[in-house]
């Protein structure tokens, strides 16, 4: 009895790690810039296709090609920021959210169709030679691909956290989150901070997308679903905490898995969402968010 539950838990944690990673990028961008980029799911999709393409064209292992995927997404992020989002920096917070939402919506249409032209509407995914393999520990199977994905998610998260807390630039980002005007008075160029966060957010989305293409599958219309998940996880964890966001993802993933084992597959989403709402009623600032912000 305990065996299946433990096994189930393992899968829940692994899917939760991806939820977390998807949300971390969004949360960083939103926290710093107040850009609500609803094309975040599409960035994830592009990351997935980047990994997929590198794998099919050159046969590069999807985990080894992650740096390349990051480079691709950094470039995409740069172009998007310079071309579109840079124009939104000076708007008031409310208008920023509005306009970025609209631009994001337009972008998601464009990206979806680009992907459709480039890769067709078929579902794609990466299967490596070791894809079906699993390590067995105490009778519980740990699929190597998912284990590696989770490890990469955790490492990405830790690196991001270190970057934000240990480097000068990271501290400048955190200061900008709190009070961009005061940050300007420190001599921080908030345009650069915005650009950097946007690009890092895109890169993290790209990593998440590549991992999705390894563990699950990708298709041009997948973006909206991932944007919704990322939004919910971002709020569940609480704004302003990278680690909190990630933990929020884990909580969501584990809840879904346990629900589908105990109550039934049809309820996995409902139960998770209800738990999210209950959390919000009792902690309106999310699990790890502080009221001070």
């Amino acid at each position, binding site marked *: 009895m305990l065996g299946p539950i433990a096994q189930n838990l393992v899968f829940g944690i692994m899917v939760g790690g991806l939820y977390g990673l998807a949300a971390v990028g969004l949360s960083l961008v939103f926290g710093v810039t107040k850009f609500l980029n609803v094309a975040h799911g599409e960035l994830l999709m592009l990351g997935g296709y980047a990994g997929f393409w590198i794998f099919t064209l050159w046969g590069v292992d999807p985990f080894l090609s992650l740096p390349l995927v990051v480079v691709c997404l950094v470039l995409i992020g740069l172009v998007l920021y310079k071309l579109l989002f840079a124009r939104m920096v000076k708007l008031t917070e409310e208008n920023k959210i509005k306009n970025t939402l609209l631009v994001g919506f337009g972008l998601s249409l464009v990206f979806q169709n680009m992907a459709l032209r480039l890769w067709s509407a078929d579902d794609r995914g990466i299967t490596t030679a070791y894809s079906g393999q699993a390590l067995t520990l105490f009778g519980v199977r740990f699929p190597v691909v998912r284990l590696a994905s989770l490890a990469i998610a955790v490492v990405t998260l830790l690196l991001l956290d270190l970057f934000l807390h240990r480097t*000068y630039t990271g*501290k*400048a980002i*955190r*200061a900008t*989150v*709190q*009070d961009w*005007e*005061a*940050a*300007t*008075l*420190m*001599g*921080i*160029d*908030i345009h650069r901070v915005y650009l950097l966060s946007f690009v890092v957010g895109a890169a993290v989305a790209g990593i998440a997308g590549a991992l999705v293409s390894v563990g699950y599958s990708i298709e041009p219309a997948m973006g909206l679903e991932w944007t919704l998940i990322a939004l919910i996880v971002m709020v569940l964890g609480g704004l*302003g905490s990278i680690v909190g966001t990630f933990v929020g993802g884990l909580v969501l993933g584990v809840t879904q898995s346990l629900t589908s084992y105990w109550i039934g597959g049809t309820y996995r989403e409902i139960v998770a969402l209800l738990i999210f709402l209950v959390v919000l009623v009792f902690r309106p600032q999310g699990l790890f968010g*502080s009221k*001070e*912000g």
Partner: protein
Amino acid sequence: MLTVEEIDAGYKDLQALWGISLAVNEGEIVALVGPNGAGKTTTLRVISGLLKPSAGCVLLRGRSLAKEPAHRIVELGISQVPEGGRIFTGLTVLENLELGAFGSNARKVKDQSLQWVFGIFSRLEERQRQRAGTLSGGERQMLAIGRALMSKPGLLLLDEPSFGLAPLLVEQIFQMITEINRQGVTILLVEQNVRAALELTQRAYVIENGRIVGQGSGEALLSFESVRSAYLGSS
């Protein structure tokens, strides 16, 4: 050192400053006093580049700041302590101070500046590992000033440093301001606490409805009738 010439500025359709001119000489403490909403804070925002004037110009040592973005002006030597301090409450005291030295020149001498600031505000040294949000009101103001000093400014702009503080603390903060000035930092001080400010400063400007309506030495202004009646009340 700082010359403000004929500045017009405002927000959207609302003009807040009308032809403001003032000058601050090297080593001085100059006060800008006036009632609420007179345009004091707006003047400081124009000087530090947060708000670009629609007419007129700001010169630092004869160099125009018109084209400089706000974050560059810090590197050029003007540092502002905004109203209420606006410290980064989620970061530690030390991190706040480090961010004060964000500019590349200031960053090179960060450790030195840190010792200097700790020398002035020893309380901050004790609390450097604490989250800034846990500090008391007076400590927050000290941190805000200390953070501004970390950029090694030639000119320090202080916006209402006494705001919301107990009288005893106000006195303490003003002593520290004098000390900072004595160590070679020119200061432009915006205050509502006119008596305290005028006692501290060599010179002061009086601003009303976005216009400079009077100037003179601190003591002279103290005896200035309109200032007396307007800001010092019956006392």
